[in-house]
């Protein structure tokens, strides 16, 4: 019994002195509670709706604004404007109002988690409108609904593009963190700093092979999605592939930033794991991005994963062009630059 107590005491002391273990035990659950308590409301999604066509008094636009869970992304648009807004990603639902009273709803089904209940809500609203008018229900309803990009609302198509990013994020952050932490545990990193090579050269040389591996990994996952699950590759997939090295580099350098503060490989690993959860929850992978409150979306925008998921959905399901897909690379490059500054500053501080 004494021996057991001695071992337990030693283990407890080590646990209490390990900053990373305490972070994993206390901070990560706290983040989970906060995120699930305040940010994650998958049933109360804010759906952006665009209204176009015959709505001269703005009655439909006003009704959309009044409806909880809906946001008016554009009202009073010319005919065809609502569908255009859905096609270019400004709105999730477009309402095209015809002069003859016909309503054509266009739904962006590339994110089924967000728009799954929209059909039912549209039909309920339509029949309520008919009832309010006191009229007899028409034999042929004047409402038609079209699902764009993912007509069968396949859930696997909804998450497969994002999964490419999640797999790359996990692998690259972990590889970056472990690669540097391993070197710091041995003396090779210290010796590297005494050799005639600049810090940026070291960083570029260290991440280059992993960037290639990460890009290949992304291409393979995307290919499997297309081959096994029929994921459509409607848009500029080449632009998405071009984005992958930047996305991989951003997470490798993030891993370095984590490792630079870690005392061991285990701590670096724990730090990397601590980042996955908020990145996945706030990026639109698990829950629709639009369903998050404003502050959570602002935090989510920082993570490269949120932008990569948008680019991946655009390049696969939504048939987006090169400019739209590559446009998501700008904030990813911003994140990469920020991480480079963090790593550089940590390197300077370690000499002090």
């Amino acid at each position: 019994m004494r021996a057991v107590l001695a071992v337990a005491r030693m283990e407890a002391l080590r646990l209490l002195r390990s900053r990373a273990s305490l972070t994993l035990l206390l901070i990560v659950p706290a983040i989970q509670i906060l995120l699930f308590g305040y940010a994650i409301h998958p049933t109360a999604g804010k759906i952006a709706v665009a209204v176009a066509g015959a709505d001269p008094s703005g009655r439909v636009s006003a009704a959309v604004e009044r409806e909880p869970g809906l946001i008016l992304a554009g009202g009073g648009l010319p005919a065809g404007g609502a569908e255009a807004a859905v096609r270019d990603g400004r709105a999730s639902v477009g309402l095209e109002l015809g002069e003859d009273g016909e309503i054509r709803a266009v739904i962006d089904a590339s994110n089924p988690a967000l728009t799954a209940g929209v059909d039912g809500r549209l039909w309920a609203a339509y029949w309520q409108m008919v009832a309010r008018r006191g009229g007899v229900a028409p034999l042929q309803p004047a409402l038609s609904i079209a699902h764009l990009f993912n007509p069968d609302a396949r859930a696997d198509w909804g998450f497969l593009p994002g999964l490419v990013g999640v797999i790359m994020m996990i692998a690259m952050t972990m590889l970056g963190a472990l690669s540097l932490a391993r070197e710091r545990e041995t003396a090779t990193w210290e010796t590297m700093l005494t050799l005639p090579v600049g810090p940026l050269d070291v960083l570029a040389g260290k991440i280059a092979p992993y960037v290639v591996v990460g890009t290949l990994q992304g291409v393979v996952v995307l290919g499997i999605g297309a081959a096994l699950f029929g994921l459509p590759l409607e848009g500029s997939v080449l632009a998405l592939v071009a984005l992958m090295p930047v996305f991989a580099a951003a997470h490798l350098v993030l891993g370095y930033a984590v490792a630079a503060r870690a005392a061991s490989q285990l701590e670096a690993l724990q730090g990397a794991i601590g980042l996955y959860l908020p990145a996945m929850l706030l990026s639109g992978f698990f829950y629709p991005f639009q369903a998050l409150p404003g502050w959570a979306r602002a935090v989510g925008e920082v993570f490269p994963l949120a932008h990569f998921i948008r680019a991946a959905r655009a390049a696969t399901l939504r048939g987006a062009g090169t400019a739209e897909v590559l446009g998501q690379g700008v904030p990813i490059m911003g994140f990469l630059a920020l991480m480079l500054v963090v790593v550089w500053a940590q390197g300077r501080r370690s000499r002090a």
Partner: protein
Amino acid sequence: MSPDDLVVADRLGKRFGGFVIRDVSFRLGAGSMLGLVGANGGGKTTTLRMLAGLLAQDEGEARVLGCDVRCPGKAMRRGVGYMSQRLSLYSDLTVAENLWFRAGLHGLPASSVAKAASRFGLNAELGTRVENLSGGWARRAHFAATLLNEPKLLLLDEPTSGLDAVTRRTIWRWLRDLVGAGHIVIVSTHDLAEAEACPAVLHFIDGRADGPMSPAELIAASGGASLEQAILTLAEGA
């Protein structure tokens, strides 16, 4: 400062919480060797790391090969070979792969690897992974990597620690050859026989560096009969 002084430390100091290393001063020209001796935690490794540009000093100045160690540029790094106490080779790479890596960083041709392998007797081990080498062979490979570009200044942190007598003797023969060829060697050691082989030593005690002086002067200053006795006497009197 004389133009012949290639390594100059002037009242160099570093604070770590409550512990202080201060007044590390010496000047070394080409073909010099300085031994750093003293108890564990006395400041030997810290001094070497400051001179290598790995750690910024809190007090004093140091110039190595004309460069301020606070902002070590590529020119200084080309001229300094730092060998840490721990093996700083990639254990999952072979000896040759480690040497190629170093050669690439120094911009040296592939032939430099073969030359270093011959010089340090590593030809038979070039294809062996470092993790499979014995301590002595691994240290030889470490030496070969550090000396690949013939650095003017060698900073060696207990290079013979844990090695057998034959390997220690071999390493010290290399060091004497290097000094003879005009290189500067600063070496920390716990082995007093090795310290006695240094023309000058810096004795670290209670966070202060005494010297440089010859081992004989250190013995005389303590009133002891040997270097071991001198260091023990000085440590007890501190």
